[in-house]
């Protein structure tokens, strides 16, 4: 027997699974080979270490835990579904698919086209009797949400105009020294604009004929109109009346700027200096504004 054969018998020898004949030969080799004897000693030590491993005590609630796991659980089907997803690594894929669908849906909704020129022509904007200023309140999809000035201003620089509404601000002077016309637009406004002192047709619904300001909103987007109405009626300091497509709002003069913000960027802006005579007349002077939706 050589050393390799001898060392192959270590395991069987220790477990007493070796034949008598093989045992005699094995022991004979060991007696004459110190290297194999040393290896056998190491082999035995290794097994002694394994056999000395401490047995772990089973936790006291072990059986209870099994019975809990075996008990029928509510939402078991749902848990099974989630476990199926986690086992098949569908989470990341599903999340990605949902994200893609969401982005595409949002893009489609926001890019719904509105022909601004067609609307301008249809409403006769540019005529002298009613024109105050016409702005693309929604040059960008950001303007879809009124009342966010920063985003609205940013949208004015957008290279992809997607008009959703046009807004006209028309002021109506109470007493007109220059023949019933008053310019409430600042210097950035188009030249030679004039405004009628005649009552706006929308006011007939409210039983008044003297608004300080008429805002005409041209928009095909009902979502935009609803959002704007929500914003206008949210301020409890403003008295609002709705009639058909028009909204009569009474608000303090000091809050005119807040009111204007709700419409996003309006350029040219209302020249509030021109309305100062209202403010001077009384500190508690209220503005009457009609917002007409078309």
């Amino acid at each position, binding site marked *: 027997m050589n050393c390799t054969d001898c*060392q*192959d018998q*270590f*395991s*069987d020898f220790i*477990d007493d*699974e070796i034949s008598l004949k093989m045992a005699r030969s094995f022991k004979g080799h060991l007696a004459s080979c110190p290297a194999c004897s040393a*290896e056998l000693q*190491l*082999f035995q030590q*290794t*097994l002694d*270490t*394994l*056999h*000395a*491993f*401490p*047995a*772990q*005590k*089973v*936790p006291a609630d*072990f*059986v209870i*835990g*099994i*019975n809990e*796991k*075996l008990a029928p659980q509510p939402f078991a089907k749902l848990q099974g579904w989630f476990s199926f997803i986690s086992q098949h690594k569908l989470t990341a894929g599903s999340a990605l698919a949902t994200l893609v669908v969401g982005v595409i849906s949002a893009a489609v909704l926001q890019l719904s086209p509105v022909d601004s020129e067609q609307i301008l022509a249809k409403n006769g904007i540019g005529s002298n009797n009613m024109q105050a200023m016409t702005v693309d309140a929604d040059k960008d999809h950001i303007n879809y949400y009124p009342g966010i000035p920063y985003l609205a201003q940013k949208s004015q620089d957008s290279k992809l105009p997607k008009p959703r509404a046009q807004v006209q601000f028309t002021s109506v002077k109470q007493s007109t020294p220059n023949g019933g016309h008053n310019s409430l637009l600042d210097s950035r406004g188009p030249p030679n604009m004039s405004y009628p002192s005649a009552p706006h047709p929308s006011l007939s619904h409210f039983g008044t004929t003297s608004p300080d300001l008429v805002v005409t909103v041209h928009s095909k987007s009902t979502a935009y109109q609803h959002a704007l109405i929500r914003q206008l009626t949210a301020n409890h300091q403003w008295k609002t009346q709705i009639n058909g497509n028009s909204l009569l709002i009474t608000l303090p003069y000091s809050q005119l700027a807040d009111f204007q913000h709700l419409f996003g960027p309006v350029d040219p802006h209302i020249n509030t200096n021109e309305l100062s005579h209202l403010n001077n007349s009384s500190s508690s002077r209220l503005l009457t504004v009609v917002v007409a939706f078309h």
Partner: protein
Amino acid sequence: MELFYLLAPLIFIVAFSVNAQDEGDDAPSETTVLVRAVRQGDKQAFNRLVLLYQSRIYNLAFNYVKNDEEAKDLAQDVFVTAYKALPKLRDDTKFGAWLYQIGLNHCRNRYKRLKRRGYFTNKSLDDDQSSLQIAGGETPEKELEQQRIINLVRDTIATMNDAEKEILMLRDLQGLPYDEIGEILGIPLGTVKSKLSRARTSLKNKLKRVYSTL
């Protein structure tokens, strides 16, 4: 005639012992009785089966994952699977080997999952909770040294392949006989011996290298 009287007690003893052995072979073991009771819907019998095997399965799991909580959850899952799959067990007398097969499958899967998550690489030797269960009576220094060696051997076993690891666990940590190991692993007795010999030699050589670097 005198010879008959001399041999009669011997004959009687041999006959009685053979008879007793036959009765022992025919009588179903406690495990088999319990398995049959569980099949008939006796849930208490299953709890009794759990009590009979919980230590073996829990220790098998612990030696695989080296953590109390993981081992507990893993071993519980083994019994849950066994309970649900019991109607598929063909031979009631093979319940033990069958349970170990389920146990090893669970251990392999859990080990792979934990390894993928880096569970074992993030785990320091201080986390090894087996140190809490070292028998007392030794000096603290000796206990510490014994624990250090055990941890070293555990870590060395963890580096072995599944086949070597499992046969070592079944034989040298669980103390199962060769024939039962053969049933569990589905290999003949000769293969059990040769695989065990290779696994033990492999561990010895690995430890030799480890000790030489200390």
